[in-house]
């Protein structure tokens, strides 16, 4: 019986956590669309959406309603099943990555057990993320293929080529990080970056791997299909690319999943390089407040960092023009891969010779 009750609590708590994470992802993604338009507007000396509700805060709801009301069109010559599958696949893969991210420190409960703010502590968390992110390309590929439109297909092929090229540099830049962490579990990596300063140096991996972070940031922007790497959906050449034939909420799913990808990608970046939920002086805070409140503060810090990264990505999008396709490939293969390799070798040599 005891076994059964514990199991029930475990399942219920995990289900609650999954639900909370999905809802928060949706909320953040919805308001990322609003934020994106505000950032774009402010950079171009405009106001952005400001009519729907105060500061235009109801704009995402209005957009969603509009997309739901639109006519659902399935092209006659498309492969119907795949056509319907693609947006859901893109969405599901975007959400799946969030399973291994530790959203905050464990909350100790009164009965002695702990409530973990991580859906699954997989000991190969990073590999899981890489696998799922690679699956995300299938959403685009299937969508582009099933539309039976040459522009969509071209865009899907571009997207696949781009993802493969940049995943390589991303993986190599991550190997350098893994040499320092000697763990693939995101929870371990988060705990290693405890506080901000220890043993005479920063604990956050950004300060140990600045070049690695730069490569990782560039590559994840390419993976998310964000400008300046948004070649799969360049409106000028490919008429919005792989979601050209999509309408109504299926289009909405594609656009929405892109923002969820951005949110989760930023969360991964914060976990790996910017100390996850850790913040300077966290030990003093932990000693003075109750553990549940402390966990909530940590989660809030985590989200503030994520929003910071999202804002950085948005600023870069509205600053830079898009790369040409050959420039993209040159950057990926001729610059980022060698840089990542040099970074890996340097890190390896330093770890071997100096830090042991």
């Amino acid at each position, binding site marked *: 019986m005891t076994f059964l009750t514990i199991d029930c609590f475990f399942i219920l708590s995990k289900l609650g956590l999954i639900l909370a994470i999905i809802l928060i992802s949706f909320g953040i993604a919805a308001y990322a669309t609003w934020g994106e338009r505000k950032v774009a507007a402010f950079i171009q*000396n405009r*106001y952005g959406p400001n009519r729907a509700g105060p500061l235009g805060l109801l704009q995402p709801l209005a957009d969603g309603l509009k997309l739901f009301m639109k006519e659902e069109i399935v092209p006659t010559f498309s492969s119907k099943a795949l056509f319907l599958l693609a947006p859901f696949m893109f969405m599901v893969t975007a959400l799946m990555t969030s399973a291994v991210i530790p959203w905050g420190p464990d909350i100790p409960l009164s009965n002695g057990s702990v409530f973990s703010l991580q859906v699954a502590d997989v000991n190969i968390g990073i590999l899981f993320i890489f696998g799922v992110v690679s699956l995300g390309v299938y959403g685009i590929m299937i969508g582009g293929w099933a539309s039976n439109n040459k522009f969509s297909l071209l865009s899907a092929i571009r997207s696949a080529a781009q993802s493969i090229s940049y995943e390589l540099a991303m993986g190599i830049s991550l190997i350098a990080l893994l040499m320092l962490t000697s763990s693939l579990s995101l929870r371990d990596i988060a705990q290693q970056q405890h506080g901000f300063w220890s043993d005479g140096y920063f604990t956050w991996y950004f300060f140990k791997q600045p070049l690695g972070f730069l490569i990782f940031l560039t590559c994840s922007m390419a993976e998310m299909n964000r400008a300046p790497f948004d070649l799969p959906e360049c409106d000028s050449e490919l008429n919005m690319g792989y979601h050209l034939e999509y309408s109504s909420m299926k289009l909405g799913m594609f656009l929405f999943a892109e923002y969820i990808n951005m949110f989760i990608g930023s969360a991964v970046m914060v976990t790996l390089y910017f100390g996850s939920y850790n913040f300077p002086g966290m030990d003093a805070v932990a000693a003075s407040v109750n553990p549940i409140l402390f966990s909530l503060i940590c989660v809030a810090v985590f989200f503030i960092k994520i929003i910071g990264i999202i804002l950085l990505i948005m*600023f870069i999008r509205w600053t*830079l023009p898009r790369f040409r396709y050959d420039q993209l490939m040159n950057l990926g293969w001729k610059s980022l891969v060698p840089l990542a390799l040099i970074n890996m070798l340097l890190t390896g040599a330093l770890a071997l010779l100096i830090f042991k």
Partner: protein
Amino acid sequence: MEKLTKRAVSINRSPMTLKERIYVPAVLAGLKITIAHFFQKKVTFQYPEVKRTFAPAFRGLHVLNRDEEGRERCTACGLCAVACPAEAITMDAAERKTGEEGLYREEKYAARYEINMLRCIFCGLCEEACPKDAIYLSETIMQPDFTRESFIYKKEDLLIPFPKKDQQA
């Protein structure tokens, strides 16, 4: 080689240097510009609440004017219709009867006066052609509508209301 225009600028097409190929300094310089723009004054006019003032030379919808006693100035001479390059103006003339002296200034007046606003190009030549100072281009803009007929403005639409008469009513 001699340049074709004075404005020709020679562009440096040499391959990118290492600093340029790293991109990061260029990205940071770009971010500096965009972040500066982020805090600049917004140029948008919040339209329904704030309206831009028109330039003094703005030419808007036409108005048929009255004289000081509230009589219509137009004598249906047709010079505006002749001057109109878009052929948007049509009119029918009528003779003033006795007892109508309070309504029309001269012996002849326009019984029907129509401007097709879909044809009108708002050039203002009718205003210049009018010998009686009867037609003016005001500072109002045309209201959108759904039917073509509604864009043919009749005399009632064009004639400005007489202030004294309005106060009585």
